[in-house]
């Protein structure tokens, strides 16, 4: 069976997204929390645009009108050891 991957980090397919939209999860943040899309190492750079397009196809809401998820820094993975390496100055 053909299975188109939308989110590589969390292994979520186009069918999974369509199914969740059918269940009433029509908000991109809701889909994210339902399916974990955008929660992996890429932080949504690969999947979110694809999900927005599927949402447009299924709900008729234009991609340009679909709000992006909240930006959650640091955008690229950073080792905890690096973050801990400098002392926090008051």
């Amino acid at each position: 069976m053909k299975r188109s991957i939308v989110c590589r980090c969390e292994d979520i397919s186009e069918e999974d997204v369509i199914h969740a939209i059918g269940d009433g999860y029509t908000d991109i943040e809701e889909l994210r929390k339902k399916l974990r899309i955008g929660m992996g190492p890429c932080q949504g750079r690969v999947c979110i645009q694809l999900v927005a397009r599927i949402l447009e196809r299924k709900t008729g809401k234009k991609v340009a009108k679909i709000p992006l998820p909240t930006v959650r820094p640091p955008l690229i993975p950073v080792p905890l050891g690096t973050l801990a390496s400098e002392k926090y100055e008051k």
Partner: protein
Amino acid sequence: MKSNADVVIIGGGINGCSLAYRLAKKGVDVVVVEKNYLSSGATGACGAGIRQQWSTKENTLLAIRSVKIFEQLSKELGHDIEFRQGGYLIAVHDEKEMKQAKKNVAMQRSLGLKVDILKPEEITDIVPILDVEGMRAIGATFCPTDGHANPFQTTFAYADAARRLGAEINTHTMATGLQLIKKTISAVVTDQGTINTNIVVNAAGIDSKAIADMVHIKLPLTPFRKEIMATERFKPLFEAMVISFKDGIYFSQQREGQIVGGIPIPEETGGYKTMPTFAFLQHMAQTLTRYAPILKHVNMLRHWTGFYDVTPDARPILGEVKELHGFIQCNGFSGHGFMISPMVSSLLTDLIANHKTSEVLDSLALERFKRKNIEKELSVVG
């Protein structure tokens, strides 16, 4: 959207959705209005922990009974809420903390909770990656039946079950006013229309204060911005949530393998600002790698903010207010709304559907703040 309902709940977080489910199950005609999407507030930003180790008897009782409900909730709702019991390990750092810990444990045991005081060398039996010296612990308390559930899945599962029972849940619908007839609620006005009802539940998280202001009722709620972070996934290394009241840190490994945890932001005061800060990140990374040095090799993926709606005694405000008939509070959870939500919705369902109150519910009424002596919950993190 319906124009009449028995009960309107403002807020589609864990407490609003679980209450909608319990009321619908009793045959109550209930409508939820949520200004954003379900779990968009504190629920969706929370640390997912479920703890029974508290300093006040009321919180401990609420938590013990909530865990009993969580244990069978996936089955009840027909959806996996990812509940698991890996325990909570609470670090104890000095003699003063040990004295309080012993007092807490005695009270918790008197209520039937299984909880133990651990020696320093027993800490790594529970969480092998911890560095007892680095975390400066002289011991710990451990309750094996504490644990986690997935806040998103739990909220969605409640909402789906509530809808199946006839509840109407409206997202992207903002409550903009409350209408009264004499001293009784008569309607909720939203940006999508008006719903006539005699009972309104104010479960709007940090916005509960603004909702109560609409009818000139003052809630002693202060919003506290909190930050929390998640790492990349890795193989399961430990099951317990590790917390410290002294350092304010909490962290655990979630089912998927990522570490999720938080710590108070240095020099943070109350307010509605939502931007994540580098100060948090550095403080969190330093403290976390001091507790578990091996984690310095793990990548941090993201951090985000959420709010605690904090009351003067760090306990929720529940039940009907004296001044306004039909205006029911379900807020002020002070960072613990997810873990006690099963009992909160159960108590409020008793109140709304059966007109039945209880000692615990009475002790959490808004009116308690008029008294001189209020017992403050001491076991607070994050």
